[in-house]
């Protein structure tokens, strides 16, 4: 189960994610991002309420990071320890901006 709370203001977009980002829910997030990111220069992903992140979720983050690297910037905020560990293990800490 994943709830996505989206705020887009001009060139700044913020996505608050709640629940699990897994094989089932990743396509939802991917679709939301693909639909919303035109003209967005600054993307913030709020992971405060995210409980679980699977490799499918990582794939969405990866493709989004690649896209945002081309048209602006992307950062993750409020990443909890469990998820942070996943980022560390998978080496995603090297390519993501995490605050």
């Amino acid at each position, binding site marked *: 189960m994943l709830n996505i709370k989206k705020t887009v203001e001009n060139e700044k977009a913020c996505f608050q994610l709640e629940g699990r980002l897994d094989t089932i829910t990743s396509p939802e997030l991917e679709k939301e991002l693909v639909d919303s990111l035109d003209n967005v220069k600054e993307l913030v992903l709020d992971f405060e309420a995210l409980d679980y992140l*699977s490799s499918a979720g990582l794939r969405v983050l*990866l493709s989004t990071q690649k896209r945002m690297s081309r048209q602006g910037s992307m950062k993750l905020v409020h990443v909890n320890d469990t998820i942070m560990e996943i980022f560390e293990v998978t080496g995603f800490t090297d390519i993501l901006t995490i605050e």
Partner: protein
Amino acid sequence: MKIIRGIKIGGLQQKIFNLMLIIILALIGVYGAVSIYQRNNLTSVVQDANDRQQIAIEEVSEETMMAVLESSMARTTALQAYIANDLFSDVGTDVKTLQAFATELFAHESDFAPHPYYEPDASKAGTPTVQMQHEEGVDPAASRDLGLVANMSEIMLSMYQNSDKLNSCFVATTDGCILFVDDRSDVYILEDGSVAYAPTVHERPWYRQAVEAGDLIFTGVETDSFSGILGLVCAAPVYRDGELVAVVGADVFLTAIDEYVQSRSSENGYLCVINGDGEVLFSPRESGVFKPALSSKAADLRESDNTELADFVKLALRERTPLSLIEIDGKYCYLTGAPMETLGWTLLSVVEKEVTDQPTAAMLSRYADINKDATALYQKGAKHAETTVLVLTAVVVLLAIMSALALAKKVVKPLEHMTRRINALSGSDQAFEMEEVYRTDDEIEILAESFASLSRKTRDYISQITRITAEKERIGTELALATRIQADMLPGIFPAFPDRKEFDIYASMDPAKEVGGDFYDFFLIDQDHLCMVIADVSGKGIPAALFMMASKIILANNAMLGKSPARILSDTNAAICSNNREEMFVTTWLGILEISTGKLTAANAGHEYPALQRPDGSFELFRDKHGLVIGAFDGVRYKEYEMHLEPGSRLFLYTDGVTEAMNTEGDLFGTDRMLDALNRQGRAHPEQILRQVTEEINSYIGGAEQFDDLTMLCLEYKGKGGNEHDD
């Protein structure tokens, strides 16, 4: 449903029939109610009009009658009163003449010689004669004035002869003698031939009243002392130097006025004379209020209980009255009155209202007859109309019942046909089809069309489902095949290297879906180098499986070229990134064991930490250096590291399916539980370790669905010595 004479009881046919019957009956009921209402209304209008006309006629004729009566009756009454009064005023004049003559006579007494007088002589009856009577005990010869007043004989005789109203006229002396003129000489002669005495003169009412009044008076009505005829007397006193010397008078029989009153009366009305005391003197009535009553007991109408009458009489004695309607003896009568001034009497003219109402009553009766005839005609017509309506209603009901039955049958027939057709349908290749019998141009046609369409759609749907099911079965078969191929790709024969005593290796993969993205691999690069790979592809299913196949082959090819682990990963990353539009990636741990020395060189591309058990310790995570997952970015350089495996060391590799296995509460299995599970095995064989961990994970997750592949690999390094630690 029972069927009686082709009609289904409780079926549509009967329901339609019932409905139509109810509508018809309701219509008839409404029609009947309206008819009855209209009829009643009409009857009441007719009745009302009748009543109003009657009232109008009554009012108009009463008003007219009143107006006619008012003018004619009042005038007539006044005239009659005048005429009646005239009867007496002449008498008054005569008496006044006598009074004046007598007064002259006494004033010039010396000029006149005594005049002879005579007692009544029966032979003179029928001839007007001057006669003398005296009271008993009075001597006429001794009378002082008798001779003097006898000088009036000629004038009295002349007066009597000239008036047809006078009964007699007379002069009475104060000493009891009376000289008078009449033609009834015989009545004064008694049976013995002697002359009757006169009643005491000064006690007679006319004498007394004249003396009291000192002027002309009229007495009340009295019965004549000799004839017994009703009459009254007009009298006047005669004075000489203020001394009463005689009383003169005239006697009037009231036969004349009585006759007048009688002659003027008819069945339509009558006259009535009332004196100043309110007593009825004359009227043709033989009973009732206006019955003449000549006695002291006569009723005074001015004091009558009938106050309207009393007031009217009082008014009539004073002046001419307007026309009044008063109840007399239980009947309403129109009355007018006019005073008879000479006597202070009044004359009333009475007409019974009944009489005046007669024309009105006649008109009303005629009118009622016409009405009655008209009503009878109307009722006859209404009755006829009722019969017609009843007959027509019966015909309409009959026709309605027949047409309702026919209509119901017509409606039901296609439905019955449809039911038979549908019941006859069997098998998927049969379909309900439109037929001519359903072409009814109404809902039945629509229903039949819907059925046909539904039937067609159902047939199409069934064939579509059949096709889809076949397709699904084919995909299922292919997936199962793919799973087998994938499983076959991984080394699955254990012991894998039965002739190598330096190590023992065991691995397992349980995909979450039919095909998974996890894989393990191990192979000998050469006789001294064993390459081990554990990897996890992002995503699941067929896409992950395809990506996994490519990754596995590229990794193995690179490894077989004798490259270092870091180089293998870097080159694999480059190869994958060159054709990775789907941006899939794979976490990979790759290690190469130098079998002879136990040196393990490894590189980690974003994969879970390996767990290592030293010969005398327990399993612990080995936090190695991490690089980015393979396939994320092109040109990533990986770092490798070395570690030395003592004989008896065990290396446990796994994918996140192990640590992220989730129970029904949503809690992850985690690395701590994994390490606990590993350590509970003591120094078991790799195959046993993996089986045990799998069991523990399965019991942990319970009934929860497994999200991720469960892939594990365990290496036990035994060193050159071979199976020194083997069980």
